[in-house]
């Protein structure tokens, strides 16, 4: 599979992550994501979705296994190499990670400023994103004074701001109603069309039930047998998870 794809954006090989003392967040996970693909990652609460995404932007390092993003081994990457890679990744965190005292515009601009974009570009892109997410009137509002759903959209806007090659969205619609979720998904699809790779962790079946996108499921840290013929995951994953549930 990996060999067939034109270019591989994300490659995980037998990755395990254990939090001290003994929380096996990920076990032997292998997964590869083609460049330009939109992938949904599902799984019960505590299955390890967030952990997987955190490995991809190296906020967490794996105990075992190989993590490659855009062809670069994250274990061997240099400091400035990592910084450059991170500017090509946009992550919408499950807990948003907004700066509550900064205004909405400043929060979004941050992602572009660290890449030394021009102020004029930053302003234009910020306005465009806020427009798309129906938050234009909150431009100057401090992020801490928004409702949770509004904050979630700001987090998504920040992740997309820099037109990253890889978008990681962690539960992007958890605080959004159906209508607003649709807005967000439209934005995601647009970026997919423009060539970005997207990995979306969600438990909301409605997000992926309609389309022909690949969906992988984590259960207790293991990838389940894939739904559309993926060669990832281990056969006894479901059995293992049933034991763990006891």
């Amino acid at each position, binding site marked *: 599979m990996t060999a067939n794809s034109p270019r591989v954006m994300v490659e995980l090989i037998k990755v395990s992550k254990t939090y001290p003392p003994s929380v096996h967040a990920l076990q032997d996970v292998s997964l590869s994501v083609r460049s330009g693909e939109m992938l949904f990652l599902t799984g019960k609460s505590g299955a390890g979705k967030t952990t997987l995404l955190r490995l991809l932007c190296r906020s967490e390092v794996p105990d075992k296994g190989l993590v490659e993003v855009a062809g670069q081994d994250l274990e061997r990457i240099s400091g*400035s190499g990592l910084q450059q890679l*991170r500017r090509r990744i946009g992550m919408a965190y499950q807990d948003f990670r907004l700066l509550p005292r900064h205004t909405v515009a400043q929060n979004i601009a941050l992602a572009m400023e660290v890449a*030394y974009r021009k102020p004029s570009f930053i302003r234009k892109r910020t306005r465009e994103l806020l427009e798309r997410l129906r938050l234009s009137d909150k431009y100057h509002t401090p992020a801490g004074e928004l409702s949770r759903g509004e904050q979630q959209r700001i987090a998504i806007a920040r992740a997309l701001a820099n037109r990253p090659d890889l978008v990681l969205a962690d539960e992007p619609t958890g605080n959004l109603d159906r209508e607003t979720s649709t807005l967000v998904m439209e934005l995601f699809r647009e970026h997919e069309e423009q060539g970005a790779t997207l990995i979306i962790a969600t438990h909301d079946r409605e997000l992926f039930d309609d389309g022909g996108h690949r969906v992988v499921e984590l259960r207790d840290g293991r990838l389940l047998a894939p739904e559309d013929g993926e060669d990832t995951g281990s056969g006894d994953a479901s059995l293992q998870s049933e034991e763990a549930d006891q």
Partner: protein
Amino acid sequence: MNFLRAIIGQTLRNLRRTWSSQALTLLTITLSVLIFSFFFLIYINMINAGRHMGDNLRLIVYLDEEPGKPLQDEYRRKILKFDRVERIEFVSSRQAYERFRKQLGHDQDVLEGMPRNFLPPSIEVYPIRSLATLTRIKRFSDYLQTLPGVLKVQYGREWIDRFYSFVKLMRVVVILSGLLLLLTTTFMVAHTIRLTLCSRERELELLRLLGASNQYIRAPFFLEGALQGLVGSICGLAALYVFFDWFRLRFAGTAVLNLFPFTFFPIPVVLTIITAATLLCAGGSFFSTRRITRL
């Protein structure tokens, strides 16, 4: 270009957003510089006063007879062989008598009828006024005793002992206060940096995750620190100068000012303090972010 603009923009925005905590830091630095330079000033003036008091310091070498010009040169040579001194003065019997008369003041009538040369001639040796000299004064006196024609060597032993211990005492007091204050200041600055970092930890971590370069994260801290060090030290020194001026006015004309000739720091010292504070603050806040760039 874009880099510089981004850095300066961020610094200005930070200053504006966190102005209350910035003001706190500034106050801390001002206080620290004030405290440090206050004690430094006291110490310097104490040393000066020590010098000044040392004017009374001399060894009197009583001779058995009035020395002629060549003998005077001989004495001078021998004394200089032992140690550098500030001044050597020859006092004849006659001069000694005059002085004694003056010292007696209103009781000088008791001297009436005495021969004018009943006091012996002497050499007055003024050693260099430094603490080091004071510690060697006993040896010096012993050496002078061995010179030919010397009756007796006298010096204000008790007075010197007292003065010497007093200076030692003051030195200990100043050093102790200095240490205590250094401890306090270090503690305060560390505290302030901790407070700043704590309040900005989330922001810095986020910048890391967004892929900000080390310079982008650290340069604003460096600029901020330098600015605070500069402004803080200038404020501190200005406050000290105001104190100092008031102080001098307060004691103008009193005997104390004759005893201690108060002076402020000379310009080079002022500049050194400001530069040191600026570099320290800039460096301090720069290095305090090291932990963060390792994320």
